[in-house]
């Protein structure tokens, strides 16, 4: 049977074998945790502790500001030793609470678990917001917002994203193998909140063990496990919706506008923990991998752990690191320092050796059309990038630059090694500014 998919996309080497077979390892506590107030899309949380204050594990240290925001919690018990801007994964210092752990792992008193059946959807949503649940696939969009469609939108499909199409990353894969039942529980809670019948768990078929495991766990539930062919960016929200339902999210709109909601498997597991145990999102699974790491593995690390500690846990660098990437190699950010902490969106830490970094200078576009062929949005990346280089804002807009999802397929494929995505990102900023002005 032919598996459903979307047009376009690429097939990079997945490099997952090194970590996919290794069991999850709990990362030890570092001497100092750096917890930024911005770990989600939306308004940063407002700090509500003072320097010198003792905090308990799971205690709120930042409160949500406005509806599109979530609180931040202390990842462990200890003392607040500083509240100051620290280097954030985005590349510049942002406000953060620095905590020195006391090693007691003392949980906050007020945390309390519930039976989801005893709660109505609104209470559940509020619970999720208070627990700081955000999309753990990397986008970190607050989950309660995604689960609150306006009354005029009818949601008929809940898609659970276990695709993990980024090369190198295997965190979701391990999670499905080791904590599948928690994921299933979380999915059922999400289904209850949305009130939908159709629930589809999508997994790329390069993870046959995960497909088998999840199929077994989903036997008695309404969840349908759907294998998908291996292709990047299958896990991107819009592409996943197209592959599963055949529908397209209207340009400039949200997935709920075509009746679908997508949630990551990691998010589902976090939802289960938040509801059943009342525990907020204070840890996540991060794949520490790449040629530059001596002993690559999947770590369960608390939020705020500095990257240097993760590297230490994995046996240190194997050689001079050339590039340190937070996230996957296709959409992750390269970092200038190991003092950056793990945050809710940190799905992986990829270290490339100096000799692995391609430093080829970009050449002229030879109009080969590869970028057009692989673009999952059917844009003409080379034309937009050319407009960007020449500052032709209106022309770039007419080529729908704003619809670009920055998946990186075009740049991966470009024989001239042009930084197409970077150009498009630049012109997108310029177009938005232009539209604000006029």
């Amino acid at each position, binding site marked *: 049977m032919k598996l459903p998919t979307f047009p376009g996309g*690429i097939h*990079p080497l997945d490099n997952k074998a090194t970590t996919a077979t290794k069991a999850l390892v709990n990362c030890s506590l570092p001497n100092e945790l750096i917890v930024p107030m911005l770990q989600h899309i939306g308004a940063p949380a407002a700090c509500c502790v003072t320097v010198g204050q003792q905090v308990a594990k799971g205690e709120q240290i930042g409160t949500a500001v406005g509806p599109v925001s979530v609180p931040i919690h202390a990842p462990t018990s200890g003392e607040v030793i500083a509240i100051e801007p620290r280097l954030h994964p985005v590349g510049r210092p942002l406000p953060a609470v620095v905590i020195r752990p006391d090693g007691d792992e003392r949980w906050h008193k007020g945390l309390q678990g519930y039976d989801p059946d005893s709660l109505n959807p609104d209470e559940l949503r509020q619970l999720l917001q208070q627990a700081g649940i955000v999309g753990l696939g990397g986008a970190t969009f607050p989950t309660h917002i995604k689960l609150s469609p306006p009354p005029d939108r009818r949601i008929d499909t809940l898609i659970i994203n276990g695709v993990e199409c980024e*090369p190198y990353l295997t965190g979701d894969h391990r999670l499905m193998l080791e904590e599948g039942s928690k994921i299933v529980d979380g999915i059922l809670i999400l289904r209850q909140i949305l009130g939908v019948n159709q629930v589809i768990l999508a997994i790329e078929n390069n993870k046959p063990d995960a497909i088998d495991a999840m199929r077994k766990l989903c036997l008695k539930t309404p969840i349908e496990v759907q294998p998908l062919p291996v292709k990047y960016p299958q896990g991107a929200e*819009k592409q996943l919706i197209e592959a599963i339902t055949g529908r*397209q*999210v*209207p*340009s*400039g*709109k949200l997935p709920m506008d075509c009746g679908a909601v997508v949630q990551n498997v990691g998010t589902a597991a976090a939802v289960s923990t938040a509801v059943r145990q009342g525990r907020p999102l204070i840890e996540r699974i991060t794949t520490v991998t790449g040629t530059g790491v001596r002993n690559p593995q999947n770590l369960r690390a608390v939020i705020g752990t500095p990257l240097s500690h993760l590297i230490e846990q994995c046996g240190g*660098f194997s050689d*001079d*690191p*050339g*590039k340190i*990437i937070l*996230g996957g*190699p*296709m*959409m*992750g*950010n*390269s*970092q*200038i320092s190991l003092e950056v902490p793990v945050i809710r969106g940190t799905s992986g830490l*990829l270290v*490339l050796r100096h000799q692995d*970094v*391609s430093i*080829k200078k970009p*050449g*002229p576009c*030879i*109009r*080969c*059309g590869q970028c*057009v*062929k692989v673009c999952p*949005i*059917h844009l*003409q990346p*080379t034309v937009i990038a050319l407009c960007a280089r020449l500052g032709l804002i*209106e*022309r770039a807009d*007419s080529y*729908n630059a704003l*619809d670009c999802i*920055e998946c*990186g397929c075009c*740049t*991966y*494929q*470009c*024989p*001239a*090694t042009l*930084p197409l*995505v*970077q150009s498009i*990102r630049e012109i997108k900023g310029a177009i938005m500014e232009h539209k604000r002005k006029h």
Partner: protein
Amino acid sequence: MDKALYISSSPHIHSGVTTDKIMRLVIYALLPAVAVAVIFFGLPALKVLLICTLGCVACEALCCKLMKQPVSIGDGSAALTGILLALNLPPSSPWWMALLGAAIAIIIGKMIFGGLGYNPFNPALVARVVLLISFPIQMTSWTAPAPLSMGFDALSSATPLGEMKSAVMLTGQLPEMATSGFDRYFYGLMAGSLGEVSALVLLLGGLFLIFKRVITWHIPVSFIGSVIVMAGIFWLIDPTRYPSPLFHLLTGGLMLGVFFMATDMVTSPITARGMLIFGCGCGLLTVLIRLFGGYPEGVSFAILLMNAATPLIDRYTRAEIYGDHHHDRGGLQ
């Protein structure tokens, strides 16, 4: 952490297929045709090949120096243009003509527009057409292929298309050579440019390129398809006056044009639909010019004309983007 880290925008990995690799593959695909040309036409063919290739590379290096840019001959595109140009010239071309062609191809055809990637017309074809119009005698004196001879005492001969054209002009009837015995054309026993002789090796080279995903099937299939349809219609109307589609496919520069000139990425459309339109246009114009035009061979003119139309094709064949069913196509501003 002694050395400074690299920072770049995502993505951080690359497919490894680069421009110079693509150019190298195209050159590999042309090697069989080059070998056949040298075997059939002997040393004169080799001479033309060398002059064109070296001439193109030298001209590009010179232009880069004059324009104070980094010398770009390393990407292999100049050498490729040189080989393609040589394959478009008769084996008996004098050295100065080959050299002039190389200069025209690189300077007027390519560097003047800013170098690789910016030329609107295929440089080798520009040079060929300029030479054809400027030196009609030298450009249309053909020698008969004589496998494994040195080629200095070659007999002059006419190309199948030329023979057909003059016969039809004189008698209104097809000559016998245009109605039967196509197998020798397929293997390459006919007069013509270096790259016109053997449809077989060119076909193999083209299939290699498609297999290696350097080119897509769109242009070759639509080009060949439209030639078959167009030539077929005329052939069915009057088989004594118009030759069969097979004759069209095997003679002249069609195979070279289909797989190596029309598929030139720089000068052909970037969308799949655009490529189909481009290929069809090439095929129709080729047959029209061959059957009714003043020149016996129309492939180069057809491709150049479609090159000229490429920006417009690109403009009006933009794909419907994801999530936009009512996209206003073609509007630039």
